[in-house]
């Protein structure tokens, strides 16, 4: 399900939003964008202004965050430039059980890349799933093309 992001008109931030999200509408005051997957968008404004801008950005069917720090070289450092994090709502819950050792391995791996355990688990699995589905789609297209050639 796509999510909608409504931002106030400001030429400094429009370019970055257009690069990451699909523009679907515009009024005199706002521009409406649509997103499907999570995106990290540089705001191209200074911190005090970024906080004000963040409060005026509205997200429907998803959520927004303005991280004050991020993970760099193995530790949390204050964010030098403001970036907006937008993602679709995650209403579906999957619970899995892991052994203590499996959990520790996952935790160590997640820490190395600066992610939480559940977020890293989701990313690892979903990357494989998207890749698998893309490969299947490609195989299907090749099969159809061969069938056509055969005709």
């Amino acid at each position, binding site marked *: 399900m796509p999510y909608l992001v409504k931002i106030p008109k400001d030429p400094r931030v429009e370019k970055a939003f257009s690069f990451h999200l699909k523009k679907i509408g515009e009024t005199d005051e706002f521009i409406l964008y649509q997103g499907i997957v999570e995106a990290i968008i540089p705001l191209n404004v200074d911190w005090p202004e970024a906080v004000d801008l963040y409060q005026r950005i509205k997200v429907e069917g998803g959520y927004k965050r303005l991280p004050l720090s991020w993970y760099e070289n193995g530790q949390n450092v204050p964010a030098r430039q403001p970036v907006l994090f937008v993602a679709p709502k995650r*209403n579906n*819950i999957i619970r899995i*059980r892991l*052994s*203590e050792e*499996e959990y520790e391995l996952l935790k160590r791996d997640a820490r190395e890349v600066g992610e939480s*355990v*559940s977020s890293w688990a989701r990313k690892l699995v979903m990357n494989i799933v998207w890749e698998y*589905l893309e490969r299947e789609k490609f195989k299907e297209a090749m099969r159809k093309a061969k069938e056509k050639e055969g005709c």
Partner: protein
Amino acid sequence: MKIMLPKEMLSSRVAKGFEELGYKIISEEDGSVTLEGVFSLRITATLLNVGIRKFAELCEKVTVEGGKKIRRGGELSITPLRSRKITVRLSQDEYEALKKAAKERGYTGRKLSSFFRDTLISALIARMEKKGEF
């Protein structure tokens, strides 16, 4: 998880399987070997090239510390005790994609979380191999 099994069960193919999953031999005694590792595994009668009765006898001698063994016919599953729970939240698109991939791989209905866990463990093993930890 520690697995103690009769030496005759550690054929070259089984030993290779253990090695691929990062298991290490920690002790060898008369007729038995103890291995230590993290991930669950399966040993089949076909892999050992023995009949079901002989396989059942061998499985009786297997002991698992920090995990459990279950034999179903010619297949022995050894799994670690799963005491940790993690909750993962997915968007609708991600959930649908996961369901589709799981169905195509033969996981149906309530096995979605099994598919998620199996895929996660495979991804972890692949990452560890890449990092040279195995």
